[in-house]
């Protein structure tokens, strides 16, 4: 039976069919749905871990115990998981273990555009890269076979256009695997120097063996299309090249992107007049060819920035573009914004009103940086707001402590914010940390986390008590505010900034997109009372706009949060009854 599946759903199906028993992940666009779909199979134990390092170590533990295991993360998540990864390369695996990493060229939902292939090279582990959903499923199975045959973790590299594209997949049955007896093997799994010294030569020898596999594996294939032009590519680039050229050029499609097949590449190069490498992001294959002394054209034609598509391929090869329509009118950009009724808005309004410096973090609330609130001063990586605030205040002293805060979401705080808070308490800065607790992992599309009281299956689970956690870390001043209440927000923030003690303010209200959150009737503007003062416009609510010099509220968007009504001194915004 053929089914249209997202690349990520196909990966999950592959995990199911491959007999995988344990999957642990932290959500991150564009990788999230791998674990969400895997959790639909009762045969696989799935969980959301607090971060990618924990997830990878959970998968390691499951592999050590002898079952097939996996974890999935976005590209920057692999930075967090890099510590276990590099030594997992030395220990190797017991049950097969596969790490899925999803790159995000063009940064649809990311803070950088790093190329995960560097990690496979640096950690000396094989990396596969599928080019559509059907390959995604097939490559999952191949990855587990390679993992077990060569005693290595394997990375499967996805990217946004493979992860979030649907294509047809042929479903197959699951092959169940017995739980083997556990055998202790300290020389292999205790990576103290005496053992690690013996494992490193194994890693080098393994890389040589997998390079040999790369020469013969059907995952790397040549599609003959004449001798004039040859193109080496992998993943989504293969699809763009085939779309533009069909069978009129020869293509070496790489499914194993590390280690690269040297002999195949040399043979392919020898059989074409001109050789091109088409790879998004960094020129990794091209560098390999340069090292081999194989002449090719790559990054001089193709940018290391962003995604490609048919237009970029045609442009690089000097081919004509199809005729299209161009408009003279400039269409204003439509950046993502905090939703109408977003609980973060009231808090950011308060920070902006008092011109408070605010170090930000990764999540929906990064959108507080945009016009008209401009409420953030920095966004670096998961957890950096709390530790950054401490450094900022140590550098700026008392003056900075009185007008600087940080904001971090509930899930991001669990991921890596709490270690920063330990540092605030231990190394004593009078920092004011604001946890934006919207009771869900929002930006990635509503995943449960250790504070929400539910697990990945939606079943009740232990909920970390944020107030108790912060107090136990040593923060005595822990306050809770409702961000829909502007006066309360203002009073508490100003008070916490004024006192000489570190403090945590928990701004608590569930994301209004959560199914259990019921919208109130939309509010509306009484045109007779509105004088067009634009006070309500300072919120940057997408439901409020000016029409004929009067505020107007879009009833399809408004959820009746009443934050704007608190700003209107004339009482022109009235509660709705529809």
């Amino acid at each position: 039976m053929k089914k249209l599946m997202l690349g990520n759903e196909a990966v999950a199906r592959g995990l199911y069919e491959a007999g995988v028993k344990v999957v642990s992940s932290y959500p991150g666009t564009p990788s999230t749905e791998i674990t969400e779909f895997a959790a639909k199979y009762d045969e696989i134990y799935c969980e959301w871990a607090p971060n990618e390092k924990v997830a990878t170590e959970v998968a390691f533990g499951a592999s050590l115990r002898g079952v097939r295991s996996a974890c999935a993360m976005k590209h920057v998540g692999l930075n967090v998981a890099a510590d276990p990864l590099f030594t997992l390369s030395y220990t190797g695996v017991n049950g097969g273990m596969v790490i899925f990493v999803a790159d995000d060229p063009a940064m649809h939902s990311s803070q950088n555009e790093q190329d995960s292939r560097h990690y496979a090279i640096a950690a000396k582990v094989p990396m596969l890269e599928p080019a559509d959903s059907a390959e995604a499923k097939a490559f999952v199975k191949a990855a587990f076979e390679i993992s077990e045959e060569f005693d290595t973790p394997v990375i499967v590299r996805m990217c946004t256009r493979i992860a979030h594209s649907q294509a047809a997949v042929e479903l197959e049955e699951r092959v169940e695997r017995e739980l083997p007896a556990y055998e202790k093997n300290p020389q292999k799994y205790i990576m103290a120097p005496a053992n690690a010294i013996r494992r490193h030569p194994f890693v080098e020898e393994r890389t040589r063996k997998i390079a040999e596999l790369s020469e013969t594996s059907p995952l790397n294939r040549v599609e003959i299309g004449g001798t004039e032009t040859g193109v080496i590519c992998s993943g989504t680039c293969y699809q763009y090249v085939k779309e533009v050229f069909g069978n009129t050029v020869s293509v070496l499609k790489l499914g194993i992107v590390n280690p690269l097949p040297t002999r195949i590449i040399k043979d392919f190069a020898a059989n074409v007049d001109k050789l091109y490498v088409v790879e998004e992001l960094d020129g990794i294959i091209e560098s390999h060819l340069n090292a081999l002394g194989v002449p090719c054209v790559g990054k001089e034609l193709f940018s290391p920035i962003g995604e490609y598509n048919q237009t970029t391929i045609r442009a690089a090869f000097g081919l004509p573009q199809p005729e299209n329509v161009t408009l003279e009118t400039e269409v204003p950009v439509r950046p993502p914004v905090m939703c109408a009724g977003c609980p973060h808005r009231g808090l950011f309004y308060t920070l902006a009103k008092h011109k408070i410096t605010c170090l930000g973090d990764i999540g929906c609330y990064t959108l507080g940086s945009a016009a008209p609130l401009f409420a953030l001063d920095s966004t670096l990586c998961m957890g950096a707001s709390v530790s950054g605030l401490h450094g900022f205040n140590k550098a700026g002293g008392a003056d900075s402590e009185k007008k600087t805060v940080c904001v971090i979401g509930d899930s991001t705080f669990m991921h890596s914010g709490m270690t920063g808070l330990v540092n605030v308490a231990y190394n004593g800065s009078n920092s004011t940390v604001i946890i934006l607790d919207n009771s869900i992992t929002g930006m990635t599309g509503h995943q449960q986390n250790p504070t929400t009281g539910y697990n990945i299956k939606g079943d009740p689970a232990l909920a970390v008590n944020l107030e108790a956690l912060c107090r136990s870390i040593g923060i005595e001043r822990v306050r809770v505010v409702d961000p829909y209440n502007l006066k309360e927000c203002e009073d508490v923030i100003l008070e916490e900034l004024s006192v000489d003690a570190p403090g945590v303010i928990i701004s608590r209200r569930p994301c209004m997109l959560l199914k259990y959150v019921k919208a109130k009737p939309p509010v509306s503007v009484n045109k007779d009372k509105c004088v067009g003062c634009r006070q309500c416009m300072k919120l940057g609510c997408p439901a409020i706009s000016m029409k004929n010099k009067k505020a107007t509220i879009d009833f399809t968007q408004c959820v009746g949060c009443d934050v704007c009504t608190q700003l209107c001194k004339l009482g022109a915004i009235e509660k709705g009854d529809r």
Partner: protein
Amino acid sequence: METKNVMIVGVGGQGSLLASKLLGALLVAEGYDVKVSEVHGMSQRGGSVVTYVRFGDAVYSPVISKGEADFIISFEKIEAARYAENLRKDGKIIVNSQMIDPMPVITGAAQYPENVLDELRDKGVFVDEIDALSLAQQAGNAKSVNIVLMGRLAKYFSIDREKWIEAIKNTVKPQFVDVNLKAFELGYSY
């Protein structure tokens, strides 16, 4: 058959993912090779969103580039203009006349270009403008704008109405089937 390209564009939260899911399921049932490319994550938060649906004998790329789209289905007026460069010379635009101000317009940094559809028509582009929001409300749920627009698209496709109706029944949640079938009919016969 040459690959056909449909772009579904709009504002995050308007329900374009359900529309592409419906269209994808229908086209697979018709026996085509299909690729559907979506955007998840940050752009979904009220930003401009685009979904690509491609079908034919053998589809390679998951995305639609400049000058390739046979249809652009736009859930909002200026989003049609934003992606018009992707339309083929003889392509068609189906657009909901609803206007949603983007943040630069809300903050006063930019004007909403209300006449973009006229400019497209002046350039010879086929524009089918419908008030999908009113029709959706008429159907019983403002959120069924997506299915109203799919009903409109069905008029230009040579696939039996019955097949569309079956696909709707298989795609939407049971409690929303009636509203969506009504929305489909209203879009189709508008």
